[in-house]
């Protein structure tokens, strides 16, 4: 699923655009170790964690798209790190559950 398709489905805006970013699965989580332990490569991460360490975790698990819920803002240091590491960020006003429902075509990324 392309970044634009994800943005459209979750009714959000692209805060950090990365050309060619896409997702083949989806994982929902707010605890970074949980994400590292269970999310797989190439997943979209649905979360409320709007800080720098979320990008670090995405680079470790190989996630290219973050869907940030409840309209949480993307801090400048997070946006800079995301752009540098090639991780796209979409901000949606929806909850994690509602965003995940909107992405139901993606299979679970659970390891």
């Amino acid at each position, binding site marked *: 699923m392309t970044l634009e398709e994800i943005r459209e489905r979750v009714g959000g805006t692209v805060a950090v655009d990365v050309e060619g970013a896409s997702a083949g699965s989806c994982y929902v989580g*707010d*605890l*970074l*170790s*949980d994400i*590292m*332990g269970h999310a797989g490569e190439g997943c979209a991460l649905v*979360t409320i*964690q709007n*800080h*720098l*360490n*979320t990008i*670090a*975790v995405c*680079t*470790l*698990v*190989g996630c290219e798209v973050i869907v940030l819920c409840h309209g949480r803002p993307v801090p400048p240091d997070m946006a800079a790190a995301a752009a540098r590491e090639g991780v796209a960020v979409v901000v949606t006003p929806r909850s994690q559950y509602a965003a995940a429902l909107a992405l139901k075509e993606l299979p679970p990324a659970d390891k």
Partner: protein
Amino acid sequence: MPARDYAPVILEGRPKQDDEILATRPPPDAATLPGGGGSEVIMELLQRFKVRDVMNRQVACVARAAPLREAQRVMRENRVSGVPVAENGRLYGIVSVNDIINALDGGWIDDPCETRMATSLVVLEAGMPLAYALRYFNNYTYGRFPVLDADRRLVGVISQRDVMRALLLELTVEVRKLERKVSDRQLERPSDKYLHREYAVIRNDLSNAGKAANEIRQILKDKKVDRALARRVAVAAYELEINICIHSHGGVLTFILADDKIIVQAKDRGPGIADTEWACRDGTSTANDWIRSMGFGAGMGLSNSKRVSDAFEIQSEVGKFTRVICAFDRLVPREKIEKAGSAGT
């Protein structure tokens, strides 16, 4: 003359609280402390050292009734630009060199110090980390600050020179240690393929946590280590780095890349884990709410590290240290075994 050559004055007694004159400012917000992008070793030292470790304890003082001429004499003999007015450990004010110049000019050099001294003072607390003291030096133009203990007694004076001297001494020790290590390693391992890195990890420094793991990830990428193996190593490094940061008093993350194996070791300076078996279970965590709000403290740090490692070891002694070693086999990585297994079925 160095500050330590002050004439010793014994300061005793507990001050009264009813007519407090000290205008202490609140310590600066921790978020504004120096260190963003600064040396981690220096930041660690600035947090570890307290004002009391660095301050000069021998303080030349004058009494309230002493004439300004006496303060002038003390300043001249000790080559300082200000002298505390204190009695029995209680600080009443400070007479500066400007007060002396004004007194000479105005003809009141024989007046008692208490009539001309500055009474609105900025003081430091003996237990403050040195990082806070440096903020005061940055925020105010004073060259030195009086230091009070928890009972508001004057226990010393700290100058920028004292801070610099302490840091230089400690850095010299650290550099010597480093030089010895580098020299030893060069003798032991002449191979270009052997790589050793150490990263200081500071307690609660979440703005820098993850940087060591990120650098390790980059090294593995540059050295073209198998992608899946590199990911496992980076996950262990990240988890262990965060663990040192949020659960310990600080420590060191060590990364070793050899031809046949990769080692990631985390060693901290306590507080130690009483039950390491319990700590390695999924979902067990002692993280506080603040840590959890940042997305940490899922209680999976050690279990994740163990899961991604080919060999895992944890040792801990309560009150002393915790050491975790994650080892990875480069010759027969688990990805190859898994691939061979699935091809055979």
